[in-house]
Every structure is written in C-alpha cells, then in structure tokens.
C-alpha cells in the first residue's frame, strides 16, 4: 500500500497554458494492490506571493527609520477544487484518470491572470495538485505540478512594427557618480542604441560602438534588472535586483567597431511589465563599462548595481511585452 504513487501529467510538454484554454491532462495512480479512497480531487491554485525583506535607514535630522520585514498576504488569482472521481476503489496496477478544467470561468472577469513570474520579492505561480483521499488514518496521496500561464492571444499586442530604439551616449560627462581621475581627464565615448520595447520571445537587440577610450576597457556587460514594488500598508517598497548579466565585450576592443547587443530574456524570470494595484514588476537594462584599473582588482565581487570609480553606466528602462 505504502508504495502507491500518484503522478500528474499535462497535455502540453512545455506546460504553457493560456487562461482561456482548458487545462487537460491525466492523473496516473500506480499501486501494487487495490485500495479504496474517498475521492480524487484536483486543485488549481494561482496566486501572487509577495514578500518584503527590507530595512531602510534614512539618516538626516529627522532620523526616519523604516523597516519592513515579512510576508505580505498573497493575492489569489484562481483557487478551485474539483472532484474528478467520487469515492471508490482503485484497482491494482496503473490507473489513469483523465481530466479537463477550464482555467477561467465564463463571465468571471474580476480576477486577472498575470503571467507566471519567478522573482525575488514577487512570485506569480500556478500549481495544479492531485489528491487521492484515503481517510483519516492514511495520508492522502498527492502530486503537485507547476504550469505556466501566458496571456491570451486575444489580448496580445501586435508585434511592434518599429521597436522603440533608445539612442545612448556614454561619456565621462554623462556619469553621475565619481570617476577615476584618469577616466575623467582622458575621456571616453561609447555610443549605441538599444530596443527598449521588447517582446519576451525575442532577444533584446541593439548595438554599441566604442568610439574612444583613453583607459583600456576591461569588459562591457549588459545587466538585466527587475524592479519589484510591493504596497505595504500605505508605503510602496521597491527593490531592484539583478536577473542576469551578459558580457558583450571582453577586453579592450577595437575602436569604432560595432558590437551587437543580443540578450535573450530568460523565461520565467521575466514577464510582461505589470502595474497592478498592490504590486508592480518592471525591468531595466544597464550597460556597464568596466575600465582597467588597479582598484577594480581589489573589489572583485562587487554589486553590479552600484556604480564604481572605474565603471561607466547607462541604464535604460525596458518595457517587456508579450506579442502575438
């Protein structure tokens, strides 16, 4: 008995579903012997989980100290329990119970199916659970599987005909943070353009040219950040964290050669930019030029979000969209 197992299988191997679609699949119960149960249930649960881990100390005369810690109540998106099989017996061997569930009820519109997103402070997750209830003495058999939700095609934008390109110049004068004296005096100029309205299925594309730099360049990276804001009480707590880094130049590259910016957006870690009432998810990209410097060797593992004396940064907001 104890070796009975239950397994969930979805009809799509990539497990991506749209809210208007029916979630189809099967529950596979394998048991060496037959046993009776009190029903087989399917649970579908989708929610926005928020957590805030932040301690902000603002100095100054007022001496405001703010601190938040803990989990904010999750925002439910969908929560259903369906009995797919009434109580009865499960035969020995393999039993397959197919199921089919509408994610969205007809006329049910108050709930918004946000796209699946795995962030740091915000997690939007959809789970499907199968439970085989076996009375009070025995633990029920269960299996859980995450499925991915993407926006319905009906609501999707047409692919932007001309993606918005932001043109940027990075020179010693565009930097708001202090620079090494040799950088400030010697100067540098890096120009380029990058798409800021990006389809999730397509890479962020653009190009970049090092026109001049007196100090040799060590590397040029594109950092992809998420900006997660959560409403706590009456305050909005915003946190920026790094998703991924993509190097586009390694070493002191030739001047006046166009380098492509080609960053593939990681699945699940990105989603369409969302501005909901209680939370928002935004993204931005930073182009960071690291110059060769003795100082940089002392700070090998530094936070890429913090500008340093030997770095030049250009940050561009990104709007991520799902297109047809």
């Amino acid at each position, binding site marked *: 008995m104890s070796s009975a197992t239950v397994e969930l299988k979805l009809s799509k191997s990539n497990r991506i579903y749209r809210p208007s679609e029916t979630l189809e699949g099967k529950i596979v119960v394998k048991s060496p012997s037959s046993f009776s149960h009190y029903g087989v249930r399917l649970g579908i649960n989708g929610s926005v989980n928020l957590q805030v881990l932040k301690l902000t100390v603002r100095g100054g005369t007022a001496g405001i100290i703010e601190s938040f810690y803990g989990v904010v109540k999750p925002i439910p998106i969908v929560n259903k329990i369906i009995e797919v099989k009434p109580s009865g017996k499960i035969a020995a061997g393999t039993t397959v119970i197919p199921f089919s569930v509408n994610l969205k009820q007809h006329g049910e519109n108050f709930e918004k199916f946000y796209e699946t997103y795995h962030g740091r402070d915000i997690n939007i997750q959809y789970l499907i659970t199968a439970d085989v209830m076996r009375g009070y003495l025995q633990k029920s058999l269960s299996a859980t599987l995450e499925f991915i939700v993407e926006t319905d095609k009906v609501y999707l934008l047409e692919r932007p005909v001309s993606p918005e390109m932001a043109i940027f110049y990075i020179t010693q004068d565009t930097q708001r943070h202090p620079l090494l004296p040799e950088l400030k005096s010697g100067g540098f100029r890096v120009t380029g353009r990058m798409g800021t309205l990006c389809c999730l299925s397509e890479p962020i594309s653009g190009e970049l040219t090092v026109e001049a730099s007196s100090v040799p360049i060590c590397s040029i990276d594109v950092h992809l950040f998420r900006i997660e804001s959560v409403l706590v009480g009456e305050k909005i707590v915003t946190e920026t964290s790094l998703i991924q880094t993509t190097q586009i130049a*390694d070493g002191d590259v*030739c001047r006046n050669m166009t*380098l492509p910016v080609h960053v593939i957006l990681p699945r699940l870690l990105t989603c369409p930019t969302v501005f909901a009432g209680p939370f928002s998810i935004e993204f931005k990209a930073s182009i960071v030029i690291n110059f060769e410097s003795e100082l940089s060797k002392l700070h090998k593992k530094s936070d890429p979000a913090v500008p340093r004396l030997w770095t030049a940064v250009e940050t561009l907001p990104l709007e991520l969209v799902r297109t047809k």
Partner: protein
Amino acid sequence: MEFRPRNYIAEEETHSLTRSAADHHPLSAVPPSSSAPPPPENKLSNSEDANFFDPLRGERRGGDSISIDEAPDRRSAAPYPQAPSKEWSSFKRLLMQKFPVSKMIAVSSVSSSAVCECAAFEKPDRTMLVDELDDVENEGLKVITQQEYVSRLYDLKDEINRAWNSDDRVTALKLSIKVAKLLVDTSVLQFYPTLFVLATDVMDMLGELVWKRIRHKAEYAEDGSMLDILPENFKANNVCFDAKETCNNWFCKVGAVRELLPRIYLELAILPCWRFLLDRPEDNLQRLVMMIRGLADPLASAYCRLYMVHCAQKLHTSDKGHLIACINDLNILFMRPASAKETRHGYLTDKKKLLVTLIDPAIEYIMKCIFDNASKVRVHIDDALVGLRLARNQVDIVERPAFVSIVLHHLLKELPAEILNSHAQDFLHLIQFSKDYTFDQCLNYRLLGFRLGEHRSQIEVLNLVLEEVMQAISQYERLDEFLNVVDAYIDIVLQNQMDGYLSSILKALAMRTSSKEVTEDDSRILQSIMIKLLSRLKDLDEIFALSHFLDILDVMYGRSRNAVNLHILDMATRKGRLRDPAAIQLLFEISQSLHDGIDLSHEKDDYARQLARLISRFVQMVDYGTELEQHLMFLVECRGAFGGINELKETLVHSSNSLATEALKDDKKQSTLVKSCIAFSEVTIPSIPTQVRQLNLYLETTEVVFSSSNWLHY
C-alpha cells in the same frame, strides 16, 4: 588526431557504484518537499524554476524512455550536418603539428580549477587532494604538464558523454561550458592551437548530441511512436512544436551564459540546430561575426572566427558574407596601433611575431574557404572582391583599402590567377602600402610575381608591373629581400623575353652582390635565379653575351655555386664540340672548382659520379682543331687538376691516344707530338687502380705505338 578507442560500457561497469533503485528522479518535479539540490552554478537553473519543464532535465519516463543512442534513428534522412570533415581534420592535424608543445605549461587559476574540478567531478567520493585544493585557491599560476592537461580534457569529454547518456543533460551542458571557458585563457600562446583543437572537438560532439536529440524529438512522439521522418532538406515547418520548443530552450540556455567567449562557442556548436527553427539559419552568422568583435584578445578572437567558419560550413551556405566580414575584422585587428602599455614597455616584438604565426593558419583557412570553388562561380569572386573593397570601380574611386601584409599574403595566395592578372596593378599598390610587422613585404612581391607567372598576361601590364616592382625593390637595403623578389620576377621576364629588364636586373644584381656580403641564404636564392636563367639559355655563347652573368657567378660560393656550375657544365657539354678557348678556359675553371669542392665532401656518391661523368665528357668534347700541341697541354693540365677522378684518367689516355692518331694522319709527321702523347699515356696508365683497365689501355696505347711505326723506340 584520434581519440583512443574506449569501451564505455565496460568502463562504466567497473567505475560505477552499486546502485539502488530510487523512488523518484532527484531532478524530477513531482515532490515539492524534496528540495532538489540546487546546481552549484548556472543562475538560471536554480531551484526557483526547478518545477518548470526543462528539456535538459527531461524526466525519466521509466521503461518507455528511449535512450537516444538506442533509438532506431539510423533510418532518418536528416543526418547531422557535417562540415567537409576531411579538410577540417587535416587542418586540425596540421595545426597540432605546427605548434607542438612538449613543455610544462603554466595554467592560470581559472582554467586549472576547471580542469581540476573535472578530476574531482569524476571521483566525487574522493576528497580532492589537499595540495590540489591549495593550488586552486592560489591566485598564482599552477604548473601542470601538457600531457596532464590534455588527458584531463579527454576525461572531460568522456564525462560529458557519460552525463548525456545518463540523461543528465544539465551536467553535460555545464561541463561543455567549462570546456569552452578554457579557451578564454591565452596565456600560453603556443599551447592555444592544441587547446583549440581539443576543445572544439568537445564542442562539435555536443553539437551533434543536441542535433540528434532534437531530431529524435521531431521524429518520435513522447511515447516512442514514430511521427514522421525528417527529409534531408527539411524546413522549419516540418518540425513539430515540441522539438522546436526543445531547440529554443537550448538556445536560451546557451544565451544565458554570462561570458562572451563561451557563449559564442556554444552557440556555434549548436549552430546547425537553427535549422529546426529557421529556414535560413545562416542569417545568424552575421550577428555571430559581430559578436566575435567583442573579443579583444587577438588570438582568442582569431581562433573563434576559425571555429565559426568551421561551423558555418555545416550549414552548407553559399553565402560568403560572414567569411569576408571575418577577414575584414581580422585585418582591422592587426592594424590597431600598439596600445600605450605596449609602447611603454617597448612591447616584445617576439611575442607579436609569435602571435602572427599562431594566427596565420586561421587566416589561411578562412581565405581558402572564401575562394573555395570560386573559380567555378564567377559571381562569388565578384562578391568577395566587392566585400573586400577590391572591385574595379571601388579601388579607383573609394579610398584605397588597406590590408595588413599577412592578410594580403593569403589573399594573393588564394585568388584565382586570372583575377590577379587583371588586377595586377591594384595589388601592387596594396603591397606597396602594406609594410608592417606581420609579414615581409618582399615576400608578398615575390608571391605576386609567382602568381602572375602562372597565367599569361598582357605584355603592357607586365611592363608596368615590372617597372614598379623594380622601382620598389631598388629601395631595399637588404640583399636577401632584393633577391627574393628578383627570383620571382625573373620567370616573367624570361617567359616574355623582356630583354631590357633582364639586363637591368642582372646589372642591379651584380652591383648589389659585389658591394654586400653574400650569405649562404643569399647564395641559395642566387642559385635559383641563375638556374632559371640557364634553363632559358641555349649555349655558352649566350652566357657570355649576358653581361654581368659571370660577375654574379663569382660572388656565389658553396653548394649553390656548385649547383650552378654543374648546370653550366652540363649545358655546355651537350652541344657538341667545344672549340672556343675562352669557353674551354671557363669550363676548366668551373670543373676545377667543382672538383676541389668534392674533395671536401666525400659522402655524396651520386654527386661525385655525376661530376666525374660531366668532367670526362667535357674533356672529350674539347677540340683544339689543328692546335694539337695545345690540346695535349690541356690534357696535361687536366691530369694535374683532376687527379681525384679515376674515370677521367681513362678518358685522358683515350684522348691522348686519339690525339696521337690524329697527328699521325697529319702530313707533317709530327713525331715529337706523337712521342709526347705516347709518353703521356704511358705515365698516366699506372695511376689507374683497376688492373684490367690498365691492361686495356696499355693495349690501346701499344696499338697506337705500332701504327705510328715508332715501335723501334720500344
């Protein structure tokens, strides 16, 4: 180079631990409570998305799973696209031969840790040796032998294979990334080609594994039933959604690699897989070419381009744009002015030269690919010329393109001869303006000369070319540079009977060789020039007619001089009787110097025999006409001069005997001369070592004596 054959099944059996059945796959998604151990690196695959269906960690489907290798996919018509493998493998072999490294190599901590980790990975139960750990932690250099390094790379390759076969594709990918990362380290320059060959072998293997897996996905349903066989030239819409999804995921995984170089290598490795997604996979090449520009290290970027070219061949595209872009980028790379640091340290030119020799094969290979089959397809050449900014209308109007000499060299080497001929002057100018450390300018002139000689050209063009070349090389200070160029153009001059140039070249040669010290190498080039001249000339008279020829011959020495002398001797004795005293004098001197030379080097038997034969023939051919006494004098002289050649003594006796017979026929009855001849023979014969020969010669001489009726004397 070949990998040693291994029996993986047997090895696996001996090395693997005893196994017990697990309830669930540790990476499978089923139990949320059992926290899958987060993979040590690779940000993307951390535990957050462990529930997401990841094609790399595809669940084990119990019994119904079909291992890729066992799958009956041999029937499939869409084989893994191979690059012309013969060329590539012979190229790899050449590369390894050209830069063999048998010394110890210092490996920076980054790569050594990767290599060490591999060793640790293999034996996860054994703790790493303490000192090995220290080495990894040390920031300094770790010294291991090349053999160790190479064998660890082989181990890594096996490990990737094993991981893949046990459906652990995450590990396989991670190890492959590690291998690709090794290519970042160019600190041991001479070792890099070897490293490249080994690492790209691993990359190619990974590419093939991924290809087969996706093809399998496209051809078989999840439950193992056959869907459809992909035809050989399938289109993207023949491929089912699932396979595309898997393919896309691979590109996403690879795209998430942080460092540029391994990211490029991995995408190149799975480049053919673009075919599952796109009908024109070659569209990605242009982006990849540009991405490679981001690699500042010249060696790493050159080899990366090489690998790109190799992988692009698998797409069987006729488009050569990426190749041309590669060459142009490489060109720019070399043209970079030395950085401040380099000039401050008076940068080691030796290192730069070494760098050029290391990059040279890459340029050669790419250039070959551009003009591969080009002679058949005219359009390609035109495209290539436009791409390299060399097309006719471009050269004149737009500012002249500049080529680094090493790039230009390979261009000259690979361009079809007729193109080279029609653009001869343009190339001449290109050579003129390419004077840098990467390659000797004179060798480019030389190459152009040889290439122009391959194909008939218009005489006017050649006149112009020669004029400019002569002008250019007159500036050269070094004799060897000058000679190298002349050596190439003398062919053209001779082929087209441009006598004016010939005499001016000879004059210049004579002037230069007399004023400068001629080294052995110079002498060797001179030999080549002289022999070319001689092969065009018919007889000695023409040699005498050429002014300065003998002057040039005089400055030569050693083996090359002998070679030329031998040539002259051979040529002169082919053309019947020698009557001109000056010619006889010259040949005698030549023979003498050859003969003197041979005494010093006994070892070359063939040469000695050839020489003896030639000198003997020369002696036979000499004809003083009626001046019989002079002839005898000559024979005496020869006997004195060529004492070392026994064969010649026979000839001398024969000659003196026939001289005597000649004298007897004469009316004047020059009895003194006959006597002298006989005396000469008599004295000469005993010095011949073989007694039978002596006897024969005695008989011959006696015959002469009898017929001269001077027998009373005996």
